[in-house]
């Protein structure tokens, strides 16, 4: 991070030699679908309260990387440590660890047979073991945080795409995860609805959430990200502050990609 002395400490004093507590630590991650190598040795660390933004062409392995972080995909090699526990360990208690890792999907994936509120309370009741009343309170607070407290009794098909995605964010947020993964959260949205979702993400960032985001919203990255990672063909090509990656990219591949996506 910047190394300057700020009046409010951003995290608890950490061990010597570690600049900040890494909430998510990915080391030498390899993943292949059959013969197709999708990730070829990824090292990436996301510190407490940091927003790390991953960009790159489609097929570069960005989404696969995210899915490995909560083991929706099984990596072939490498380790991922979340909040001090290795999720890639063979005996890892996945159902317990996954509560600490929120995930937001491109296609929202709300449960269509349940109301917005019930979408949020399901895991609170069945995984976190909250009582019906407690779960309801937490769910309403989470929906309020994404600006949808008036939609708690609506079914997903009664909500716009942007509203659905915000309910999906509330569903993850309600479990109080240590890190949130966003897999192209605005790619399936109509342009006029993108802003609502990005505002919620901005708000979460300001609230101190640790976030790893795969997206094409470059302007959002410019404003909100602490680190930008450019991935191509299964490797991290370069990484740095948004200013450095967007304005002074070192690698030709990064320049080519940014040239293509610039409006």
């Amino acid at each position, binding site marked *: 991070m910047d190394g300057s002395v700020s009046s409010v400490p951003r995290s608890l004093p950490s061990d010597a030699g570690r600049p900040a507590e890494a909430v998510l630590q990915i080391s030498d991650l390899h993943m292949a679908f059959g013969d197709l190598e999708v990730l070829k040795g990824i090292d990436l660390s996301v510190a407490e309260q940091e927003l790390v933004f991953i960009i790159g062409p489609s097929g570069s392995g960005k989404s696969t990387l995210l899915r490995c972080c909560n083991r929706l995909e099984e990596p072939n090699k490498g380790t991922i440590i979340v909040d001090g526990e290795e999720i890639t360990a063979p005996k890892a208690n996945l159902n317990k660890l996954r*509560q600490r890792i929120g*995930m937001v999907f491109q296609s929202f994936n709300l449960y*269509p047979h349940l109301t917005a509120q019930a979408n949020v309370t399901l895991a609170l009741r069945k*995984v976190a073991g909250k009582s019906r009343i407690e779960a309801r309170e937490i769910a309403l607070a989470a929906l309020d945080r994404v600006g949808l407290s008036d939609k708690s009794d609506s079914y997903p098909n009664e909500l716009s795409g942007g509203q659905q995605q915000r309910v999906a964010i509330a*569903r*993850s947020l309600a479990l109080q995860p240590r890190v949130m993964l966003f897999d192209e959260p605005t790619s399936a949205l109509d342009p006029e609805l993108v802003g609502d979702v990005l505002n919620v993400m901005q708000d979460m960032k300001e609230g101190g959430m640790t976030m790893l985001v795969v997206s094409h919203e470059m302007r959002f990255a410019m404003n909100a990200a602490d680190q930008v990672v450019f991935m191509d063909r299964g490797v991290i090509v370069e990484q740095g502050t948004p200013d450095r990656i967007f304005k002074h990219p070192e690698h030709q591949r990064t320049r080519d990609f940014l040239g293509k996506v610039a409006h």
Partner: protein
Amino acid sequence: MTPWERFVDAFFNREVIVQYLPAIGKGVVVTIELAVLVVISGIALGFLLVVLRAYRVAPVNAVIVVFVDVFRALPPLVLILLLYFGLPNIDVTLSGFAVVWLTLTLVLGAFAEEIFWAGVLSVEKGQWQAARSTGLGFGQTLFYVILPQAVRMTVPPLTNRTIAITKNTALGTVVGVGEILNQATTAQSFSGNASPLTVAAIAFLLIFVPVVYAGRWIETRFAWRKG
């Protein structure tokens, strides 16, 4: 007699109808009992099988697939006769009622499993991923997220299939189950008149037309627009 009078006498003979109505009434009770039992146990069996199949344990699934294919392919009448006349040879004697119930339960169970399974497969993969990402286990995801959607989607085909199979309770007549058709054919041979069969047809309509409507009601009740 005019042709019309002959027709009425053959199919709507009042005297015969009045005489045999109580017997056919008893048959109605038996048919309804059998039908209700078959619907409950058949759908329960199909549900149980689809839950087992969802765990994708290869040997278990192989057994389920074979079971389902066999019982979907065999005509129920063959099974009924086989069990009713075959089992006593190995000292197992089941009543005609039990044999028909068992056969139709197995057949409905097989079809229901196949229909439920199609429903499970048609639930988007993202639903599994979203549920698992919140820490729900496999079984929890199956019961709280996948099956409620799968079952809803399968209500129309399941209703049709259930009605089609439940009508086969009439096959009980060949193994002496005193259901509607059995009572009617008995009455027909005693009276030498087809009117009891007319009554039987009307009785079946009175039972199954409401079931068809109930099915339609369930379909609209459970239908929901996909987002």
